[in-house]
Structure formats: structure tokens, C-alpha cells
């Protein structure tokens, strides 16, 4: 289990990185944290001629607020998100979800951009980004574009990222302080890839009715899934248990999870309903805190 031969490039800024991508494109793989790529190399499932290591590009690192967005540089590591007060305060859903990513050793190396680009349908960050209707900023030598998760995630481990492009940053919309939020996940063992996961944000108005609902399910389809009917259904409703229970299973038929040895498609669909119910209930409880009716 040793990586095959490759040429190694470590650009010092992203103009250089884009030049290298432009030059090697198809023959190159971008290395961000390497926590998914290096196992793939060790197993020789991929044999790229060139590895472009983005770890020394400081422009791609950091967490900042820009208007109503939290902007996270593509090369920002999970551990930095985990330890960020800004994230904790402004993006609590992400803060809650990030601890589900692998184990400490993985979060110390793995990056936000890397996780998004890897596009594992059961990964936590794509699910949260999708729920929050975030944005992915992609650059190439030619242009810089901003895409939605729906445009970006195409299928299982497949994204719209072209060989000459890289993820510059990922933008998570800030949810209003009054919003309730919850991230729920189940895995066979702690730290394993999720069987399924659910992310939910709920806001209520002064009458205690739901004014906003943002939801995504991960691991239940080839890409993170937004149950839009559920979101619409919830608006204007009081978040009591019956309503949330009903909402959670409304769109299970739209899910088509892949089965594997850890759980069949049918089982994952079943779990999706349970997790969504849990996430909705917890998010609603949080939203109702401080609302006096």
C-alpha cells in the first residue's frame, strides 16, 4: 500500500496553482488535506501523474464574515472550523456537524474544500452547505464563478469541478439568531461514514408558527437532498410533534439511497425519516426557546 510515482507541485499562491492546473489539468490531482486522496493513492485506485498540493497557499485559508455569509477558505482545516468562535456563533449548524467528521486526527488535516470537492454523499459538510443554501466559489485561470450546491454536486463522488478549477472558498449563509437548528447522524461506529444524516434549520414567528425551514438529507441520495415539499409544508404550521412527524416522512419516496453492507437502501430511507424527525424536533425546540406564546 504505497502511492504510485507522481510529480509533486506545491504552489505558493493560487495564481501559481491555477497555472499548474492549466498546464496539467487532466493528469493532475489536487491535494488539499489528503485524508481521502492518500488512501486512494495508497491503494493505487488512482495513479495521477501530478499532485498539486495546495497546503502552502495562505490565500485559501481562513474563516471570515462577509455580510450575511461566513466565508471559509477551501484549504481551511476542519479543526479550525471546530475551534472557531465565529462559526460557533454565526453558523452553529456547521459547528454541530463538524464534530461528526471522522476522528480528531482526520479533522486536524482534512479541509473544508477537500470535503466539498470529494462529494461523498454521506459527508457532513456537503449536507450542511446544501441545507443552508450556501455557495461554492470556484476559480480557474479564466474565471471565478459562484455555484450553488445543487449545481456543484452532480452524483456520487462527482462534481461540476473541471480539471483546471479549484475551490477557492465555501460560503455558508448566517442564520438568524432566533433560528433553531440541528444536525443528526447515525453511523455503524462513531466516526464512520454516516448511514444517513439530516440537517435542519427552523425559525418561528412571534405567534410560534414556522416562518422558515431549511432542510437537507445526506447519504440518502447520490447528492445531498433538499426535501422542498417538506420545507413548504412546514411554513405557517405550529411545530408540534404530530406535524413534525408527518413532515419527516412526507418525501421519503423521493429518496433513492444506495444500499451497501452497512445498510440497505430501504433501511437508509427508513432512517432518513427518523433522523429528519429528530432534527426537526430539536431544531423546533431550539427555535421555540424564548418565544413566548
Amino acid at each position, binding site marked *: *500500500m*504505497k*502511492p*504510485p*510515482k507522481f510529480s509533486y507541485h506545491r504552489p505558493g499562491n493560487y495564481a501559481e496553482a491555477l497555472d499548474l492546473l492549466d498546464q496539467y489539468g487532466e493528469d493532475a490531482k489536487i491535494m488539499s488535506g489528503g485524508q481521502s486522496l492518500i488512501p486512494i493513492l495508497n*491503494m*493505487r485506485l488512482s495513479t495521477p501523474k501530478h499532485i498539486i498540493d495546495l497546503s502552502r497557499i495562505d490565500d485559501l485559508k481562513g474563516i471570515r464574515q462577509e455580510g450575511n455569509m461566513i466565508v471559509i477558505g477551501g484549504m481551511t482545516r476542519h479543526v479550525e472550523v471546530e475551534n472557531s468562535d465565529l462559526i460557533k456563533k454565526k453558523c452553529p449548524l456547521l459547528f454541530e456537524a463538524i464534530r461528526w467528521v471522522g476522528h480528531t486526527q482526520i479533522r486536524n488535516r482534512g479541509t473544508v474544500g477537500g470535503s466539498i470537492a470529494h462529494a461523498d454523499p454521506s459527508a457532513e459538510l456537503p449536507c450542511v452547505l446544501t441545507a443552508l443554501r450556501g455557495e461554492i466559489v470556484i476559480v480557474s485561470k479564466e474565471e471565478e464563478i459562484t455555484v450553488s450546491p445543487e449545481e456543484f454536486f452532480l452524483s456520487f463522488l462527482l462534481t461540476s469541478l473541471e480539471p483546471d478549477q479549484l475551490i477557492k472558498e465555501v460560503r455558508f449563509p448566517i442564520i438568524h439568531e432566533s433560528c433553531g437548528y440541528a444536525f443528526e447522524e*447515525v453511523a*455503524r*461506529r*462513531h*466516526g*464512520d*461514514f454516516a*448511514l444517513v444524516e439530516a440537517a435542519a434549520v427552523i425559525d418561528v414567528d412571534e405567534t410560534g408558527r414556522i416562518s422558515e425551514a431549511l432542510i437537507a438529507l445526506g447519504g440518502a441520495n447520490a447528492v445531498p437532498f433538499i426535501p422542498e415539499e417538506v420545507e413548504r409544508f412546514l411554513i405557517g404550521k405550529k411545530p408540534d410533534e404530530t406535524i413534525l412527524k408527518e413532515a419527516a416522512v412526507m418525501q421519503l419516496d423521493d429518496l433513492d439511497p444506495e444500499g451497501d*453492507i*452497512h*445498510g*440497505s437502501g430501504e*433501511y437508509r430511507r*427508513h*432512517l432518513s425519516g*427518523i433522523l429528519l424527525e429528530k432534527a426537526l424536533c430539536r431544531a423546533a425546540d431550539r427555535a421555540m426557546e424564548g418565544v413566548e406564546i
Partner: protein
Amino acid sequence: MSKYVGQNVKRKEDYRLLTGTGIFVADIRLDNMAEAAILRSTYAHAKIKNIDISKAKEYEGVIDVVIASDLEGKVKPFTEFVEFTLPSNLEQEIKPTIKRNPEPMLAKDKVTFVGQAIAIVVANNRYLAEDAVALIKVEYEPLPVLTDPYEAKKEAAPVIHAELNNNIQSHFEVKVGNIESAFRQADYTIKTQLKTPRVSGNPLETRGVVAEYEERSSQLQVWSSTQVPYMVRSYISKLVNLVEDNIRVVAPDVGGGFGPKCAVYPEEIVIPYLAMKHKRPVKWIEDRLEHMQSTRHSRDQVHDVEVAFKSDGTILALKDHFLLDNGAHNSFALCCAYNSAAHLRGMYKIPNYNIVGEIVLTNKTPNVPYRGAGRPEAVFVMDRLIYMIADKLNVDPIEVSRKNFIQPEEMPYETDLFYRDGTHMVLENGDYPEGLKQALNIVGYEQFRQEQIEERTKGRYIGIGVSSYIEGTGIGPHEGAVVRVDSSGHILAYVGSSPHGQSHETTLSQICADEFGVSPDQVTVKAGDTSLLPYGVGTFASRGAVTAGSAVQVASKRLREKFLAIAGEMLEVAPNDLEMKEGKVYPKALPSKFVTLREIALAAKPGPRSKVPEGMEPGASVTHYFIPPSVTFSSGFHVAIVEVDKQTGFVTILKYVVIHDCGRVLNPMVVDGQIQGGVAQGIGGALYEEIIYDENGQLVTGTYMDYLIPTAMEVPVVEMGHQEFLSPRNPIGVKGVGEGGAICPPASIANAVCDAMKPLNIKINSVPISPNRLRDLIQLAEAQ
């Protein structure tokens, strides 16, 4: 006498292992050392039409590429492992069919499982060796693949090894009493099928071999991550045709064994051969992907069983027909299969018993004994049956157990079976009803039953499951020890049984230290090196403490007696009037007039200054080979309390209790550690671990992402209690404990889950109880 035996003496092994200065096989680095990588079959069953190694041979840094034909006339093929063949009286008794089915070194004309070795590349380093492996082109012609043992044993099934005529490699039957008449007297019978899946022992250190040949003295030095260095030496000698004394096999620090490292593998023969061929050291370290495919797997039994019982719960008879899905080669005769047959009735009196075992070949990785070796399978069958009987009679399962226990006054209890070592299987002592009582006290059984009823009304599903085992431990044929005092007065104990986590250096030094009346610090234990003594067996089958411990005790005692005799000459005092303590020997009446162990050791040397009494050989060393009269039976109870999430099917272990009898406890900390670790592996087997092949014989669980080993999050702290019935079958009264922890968890947890879901009457007939499987069972039960 025993000042250190029985104490929590801290481990001597720890310092090096904590500071990173231990030496595992992969840590060995020699001048000019080459590294090997292996091309393994990607097909489960196929003819090899052609192997093109030309590109690999030309690749930079490549020293050699060998395939099966290159070994002809140089390395003989494996014979069956004689270490595992049946004693003649057992053979007479059960008249088994066992067909010869040894594994080839490298696949030649056909491959029979995914992961089988085809070619070995030797290069300047592992990176280059792997590059070259990727350049080898094998032309396969796929053959029909067999992955289901029931399909494989059909008459029309394709035959994996033509010379065997069919895929049933072994067959045997064991009969006790009169099964037919017992079934006629029964009030009830239950017929069911119970399955224990294929699992992998998965020590954290993979296998590995380093070999170096020194031409000047024709010495072949081999380091291998093995449980059985003597067996490795024996097969290198036989198959590469070398003088055995010219081979030294060392098992250095070994990173776990658990069974999979308990026999010889092709790499342990071919890598030494390649080191000799190229006159340079060669290292091969198995990587985890290779390990999952090529290190032998275990368990994988399906039992079709029928039990007859009376309405008061008395079990009258049990009949069982089971298949062991062995994979492509069986070199272990009836090892696990016969263990299952011998242990299936466990602690229960079942006077009429009939069991047929069949070892069936399929296109999977071969089988090996793994921690428990046939007992977890047997216990799963027996203890699930106890719960099914209780269900049928609508009584608490512990009542069924109590009804059928062998009673303490019936000890020693004749089982009317032969054990695998050819002796009568007689349980020597123990008090099973008391053991269960202790376990239920710790767990608070009655109170739990109350709580369970209350919680059920709140929609919470908790359950309790009991399982028990007996285990023949400390199997022979022998284990030896050399105990000597060197000229500096330091005591050395060399043993043939080499450890891989069992703490031999500590516990054996405790035994030796007590004999000499010194501290264990004054004793150095060495093991894992065939140059230490001429014969050795190994550490497996819960035998280390029983066999090596006894050998050390007897050798120490004899050397002590010899030293007293020499000291008697030195002090001109009768040995009986002498005392040995803290490294000194002195007359009981006059402690100030002493001689030290060092002085006695010097006086033991031959020559004019010798003080060795007449008729005694000079020398400060005694060798003893302990030959156990038979195995000694340890036993135990496991109780699991679990909670089932009815919606998701997830099982949480809330409490886990073990009561066990391993005879005299040499070092409680070490014994408890063995049990806790065994339970963790058992929990793996109960809830997480399963080797899965698809219908093409491709290994689906080939990585640690798919093969789920429990982490700290999944393993509870086990609460333990001890029974201490000293074994009369060895001088130190011990019984083996290494495997016990791993034997019961699949049964105790499955029983607890069924107990939790009793309102739905769910039957768990196979493990692991994955959330998906359990949820399906719940759903099915709810639909009814």
C-alpha cells in the same frame, strides 16, 4: 511460598513498548535489505493461462520476480500440518474422513480464492516492488465460483480441487447415548438453524517476515510475526531442505496473534528461500489489504440443530449437523470443527448427543482457528437454544440453565467424548450453579427484571442475556522451559511458548521468582527464539500459562533443589536445613552464614572448584518439558444488558458482566486484561464484524472501512468476578484464560436483544446483529 504469584506485578514488557523501542518484524532493518511485494489473485476461481513477468523483471530496482514454476525443485509444497492431525485413538473412535488439502506456495495452474499469492517481486524497496507487481500481467480463465457451502457440497457442484472428487474435505460424527429413543420421550422439540459468520482475527500488526542467510556458517536467520516460531522452523527445514539446527526463527515483539498467526504461511517459507537465493536479506511486510484477503479467516459455521426436552425444561437430547465453510484449503484437519462438537453441550448434562460435522471447501480465504476456535460457534448454538426452550415453556431462561447444569458434586464429570488431544474429556472441577449465581448477583437480575417491566411500559426496550462456556485449555503436546542462573547470579527462564501480548515476561518471572524467593526483577524471561531450547510449541489455545507456566515452575523448583544441594556442600550443611531467600542460601539456624546465588552458580561450574555433589551433573541449569495429562477446563458466565432502539435497530450495551474460573490467578491485572480484550473481540463478532464475499467470490470487506473493529466508543468496561477452582492437571493449578472473553458475547448479546424484544418474539439466528438486520426482524415481527 507464593509472594508474587497472584499479585498485580507491573509488566516488564511495557517500558520498551511505551518508549517506541520495542522491535516488531517491520522494525528490523539490515544492510542491503531488499523488500518483497506479492501479486495476489483478483479472481476467486480461475485457470491461470499465462503470467507475463517480463516488464516487472526489467523495472528499476527489481532483483527478482518468482512464480510457482521457479520454486519447483527448490521449495517443496506444503504437506498437511502434522501438528493438527488426529491422535490415533480419536481417529479410531470417530473414524473421520479427512482428505489431504494443503495450500500451494504460489498458485500455479489455477487460483482458488481472491488474495491467493501468484508472484513475488523482490526489489530494492517496497515502493518499487509494488510498482513492479502492477506490471505483471496474468491471463485468467474464469471458472464457476462457489461461495455457499450448501451449494458447494451438492453432487453437481463444480469441484474446486479435482483430486478430492468433491468439495467435502472432512466429515465426522460423534455419538453419545441413544438419540432416537430420547427424542421419542420428549415433550417438545425445537428445530432451527444457527449461523456464526466468517470473521477475521485482525491483529493490529499484520504478518511479516525478514530473512537473512549467512553463508559462512550456513545459518538462516528468520524473524516472523508468528505465534509458532518452532513450527515455522520445522517447515522451512522440511520444505527448503535445510539442516534444522542451521535455522533460527525469532518471533520478536509480536503485535497480536489471536490465532491467525498460529500456523505457517507460504510467505514464511518462500521469503527465507529468496534471501538464500539472492544472498541478501529480504523483508516482506503484509499490508492491511493483503491481510484482509490472505491472512486466514475463521468461524463460518452453520448448524442445523434439533433439541428434545421435557416440559420441566430438562434437555434430553440434541442432534446437530453443521457445515464449516472452510474456504479453499484446510491444513488444520478437524481443529475448529471438532472443538465445536466437543464443546457444544457446554455446562449442560445432555446424555444423548449426536453431531455431524462437515468441512466444505469454497472459493474463499482458508480457515484458521481464531480466539475461541470452534467454541464461540458452539456456545452460540447452545445458548440460543436455552433461550428458545425458555420461550417455548414460557419460563425464565436461567431456570432452563439451572435445570440442566452439571452439578458440582458430579465433578469430575465424564462427558463420554474424546477430547481433540485423544484423552477422555472429563471436566475436572467447578461449580456452575454458583458461578451463575455470582454473575446474577453482580448484575442484579431480579431488580433488572422489575426495571425491565417498568421501562417497557415507557416504550424502552432493555434486555438481559446470559451465556456460559467451558473450554479445554492448555493443550499439549508439551512446552518446555530452561531455567538457569548465570555466573552473575541472575536467573533466566527460557520458554518455547512465545507471547504476543500475554505478558509472559511478567507472569512467568513471578512463578520463577517465588520458587527462588527473589523478586521478579531478578528473573529474565526469554521466549520467541528457537535457539533458546530445542523444542517448543507456541502461544495459542489458551495454553501459555498452563504449559509454559508449569514448565517454568517445575524447572525452577528442580534448579532450586539443585542449588540447595550445592549450597549444602559449600556450607557443609544438609540441604534440608537450608533456606533460600532473597538471593541467598543459609542454614535456617544461622542466617548470617550465607552463600549467594552467584556463588552457588560459580560452584556449579564443572572443574576442580566445583561443589556439585557426587552423582549430580555440573551446571546451573535445569530443563523441563511439561506434558499435560489432558486439557484443563476453564469456564465462565457472561451477562449482557442491552438497550434496543426499536426504530433504528441499534443495540447499546448498557452493562457487561463476566464471572470466570481460570484456576489459580497468576496476575489479576493480566487476567482481567485478557478477559476485557476478549470481550471486545466478542462484541465485534456480536454486533460489527463480518467478512463478506459477493457471489463472484470478491471480498467486499477488504478494508477497515468495511470490516468494523470496535472502538472505545463501542466497548463497555466489563465488570468481573472470579471463581478459583485450582486445576489438578498441572503443578500450579492454572487454567487457560486467553480465549474465554471472546467465546460468549455473540450468544449473550443475541440473547439480551431477544430478551429486550420479547414482546415481539424476535429470534436471532445469526450474528452480527447489524442495525439493519435487527430493524428488519422488528419490522417483520410487527407486521405479523
